[in-house]
């Protein structure tokens, strides 16, 4: 077995342990923790990239699989981790969150997400899911003196535990129907099923869909998401909205494309309706918000709806569009949360009206936020526009014109609330306050986010080439 192929996982697991030690050693300043965290993430990222071109291989008795699909998601998760590390340092100090514990937990959660993306067996999927979920419950409650953070944590824990149990019940039924937990073996056994086994299979599909639907916050199981993302510490919200949801989608893609492709006609229509309802309710919910993080949370629900469109199309083109969208969405969202983090380091920044006059106080940050909001809304020539365009094209090519139309109409709807922030920053005056200067780490995050949102919109071909080369079936 080739140990090199699971090097990224080893590096992250080791990084988690090393960070505990570094945190103990660094008593005064926590800067060493940040530096070790960022360096470790870069090392893991380098290992993933170095392994990218290797032949697809089964590892550890077919529990894990190395292929471009897994590597792509690993890259997404590690970029998210690195950006969260960079943007969180000052926030953690100012809001009295324990730096060491935060870094260790978020590293381990990322390891869970990476295992989810790389697994081809329900046992490993379950373990990865829990390794992602358990640290997340704690992370949501890391602001120990903030009662809202407590509430987010307990809600997340209870919803997460119940949804895991529902998903596990589905897995156990699937195991009963197919006699195995391996996704490929399940796919091979499905044509020979009959009678009661088929009933088990459909029940299993229902439980799985509900369990994973909660994880990716799909309508009507999305109500927990705004509460949790609003109450959690802002860097944690950024991580959960991007990494946790992307991991859920990675698993959904694997299950639907590898294990249950013969049933595509059955799950396609269900997912299409769920996608439509999710984006519409997300956008309508976001319109009504006056708190920034809550608005971004509802917009995340809407974005999950767009991504589900890619899943519902059930063609490789749709899945490729989904990967493209997940990648650019993760970077735009981390950037937007970076701005919220930056603002909340200096002034209270819970409300959308706290953005009033930001253009005078910090023109650079306001410009970055504008570009990110335009990209999230899907205005050309940004990456968000091109991602939605790919989804639209895939939907139309698959004959689902109404889904493409739903994406377009919804992105028009979403413009309203994204522009509210831009209007507050530029068009509304307030008594001149002190100028706010961004620190180097936040600046790096914002510059990276802005550059990629513009770059992948103007020159999308390289990324499109990468995602369309990824095969979804082993």
């Amino acid at each position, binding site marked *: 077995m080739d140990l090199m192929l699971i090097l990224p996982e080893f590096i992250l697991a080791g990084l988690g342990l090393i960070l505990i030690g570094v945190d103990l050693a660094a008593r005064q300043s926590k800067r060493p923790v940040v530096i070790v965290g960022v360096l470790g993430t870069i090392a893991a990222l380098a290992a993933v990239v170095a392994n990218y071109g290797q032949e697809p291989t089964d590892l550890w008795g077919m529990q894990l699989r190395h292929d471009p699909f897994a590597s792509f998601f690993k890259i997404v998760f590690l970029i998210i981790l690195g950006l969260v590390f960079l943007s969180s340092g000052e926030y953690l100090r100012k809001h009295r969150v324990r730096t060491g514990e935060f870094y260790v937990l978020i590293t381990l959660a990322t390891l869970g997400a990476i295992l989810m993306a790389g697994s081809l067996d329900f046992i490993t999927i379950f373990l990865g899911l829990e390794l992602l979920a358990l640290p997340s419950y704690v992370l949501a409650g890391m602001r120990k003196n903030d*009662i809202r953070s*407590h*509430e987010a944590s307990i*809600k997340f*824990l*209870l919803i997460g535990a*119940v949804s895991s149990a529902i998903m596990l019940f589905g897995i156990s039924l699937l195991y009963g129907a197919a*006699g*195995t937990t391996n996704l490929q073996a399940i796919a091979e056994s499905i044509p020979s099923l009959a009678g009661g086994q088929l009933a088990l299979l459909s029940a299993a599909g229902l439980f799985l869909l509900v369990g994973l639907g909660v994880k990716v916050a799909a309508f009507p199981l999305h109500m927990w998401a705004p509460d949790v993302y609003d109450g959690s510490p802002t860097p944690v919200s950024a991580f959960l909205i991007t990494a946790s949801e992307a991991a859920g989608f990675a698993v959904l893609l694997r299950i639907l494309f590898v294990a249950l492709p013969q049933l595509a006609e059955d799950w396609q229509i269900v997912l299409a309706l769920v996608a439509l309802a999710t984006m519409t309710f997300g956008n309508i919910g976001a319109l009504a918000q006056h708190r920034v993080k809550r608005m971004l949370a509802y917009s995340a629900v809407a974005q999950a709806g767009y991504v589900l469109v890619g899943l519902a199309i059930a063609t490789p083109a749709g899945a490729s569009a989904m990967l493209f969208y997940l990648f650019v969405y993760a970077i735009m969202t981390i950037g937007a949360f970076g701005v919220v983090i930056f603002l909340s380091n200096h002034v209270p920044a819970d409300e959308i009206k706290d953005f009033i006059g930001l253009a005078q106080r910090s023109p650079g940050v306001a410009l970055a936020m504008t570009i990110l909001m335009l990209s999230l809304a899907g205005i050309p020539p940004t990456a968000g526009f091109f991602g939605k365009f790919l989804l639209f094209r895939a939907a139309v090519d698959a004959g689902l014109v109404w889904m493409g139309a739903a994406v377009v109409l919804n992105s028009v709807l979403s413009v309203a609330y994204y522009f509210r922030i831009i209007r507050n920053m530029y068009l509304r005056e307030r008594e001149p306050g002190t100028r706010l200067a961004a620190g180097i780490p936040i600046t790096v995050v914002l510059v990276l986010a802005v550059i990629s949102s513009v770059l992948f919109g103007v020159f999308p071909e390289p990324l499109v080439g990468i995602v369309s080369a990824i095969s979804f079936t082993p």
Partner: protein
Amino acid sequence: MELPLTYVLGFSALLFGIGLFGALTVSNAIRILMCVEIMLNAVNINLIAFGRYLTPEAATGQVFTLFVMTVAAAEVAIGLAIILMISRRRDSIDINKMNLLKW
């Protein structure tokens, strides 16, 4: 005579139903955690029964059960820690009273 598989499955489905009903209706956070444990036990019974009746030569179901139990223990440990943190702050773990974050 061997117990038919359907009896075992019916039992586990009943157990899961009780757990899910409890988790959705009870308002005490610790009770919800206990209900989740009942649901997970239903899963374990399913896994072991399927393993025993359908694939007696492979140990997949039993191995999976061990993992489920381990993770459930970790989940409860974290859950109780979070509940403890909350009860110190507000003297109540009634989730109906946790309504700061809404809409």
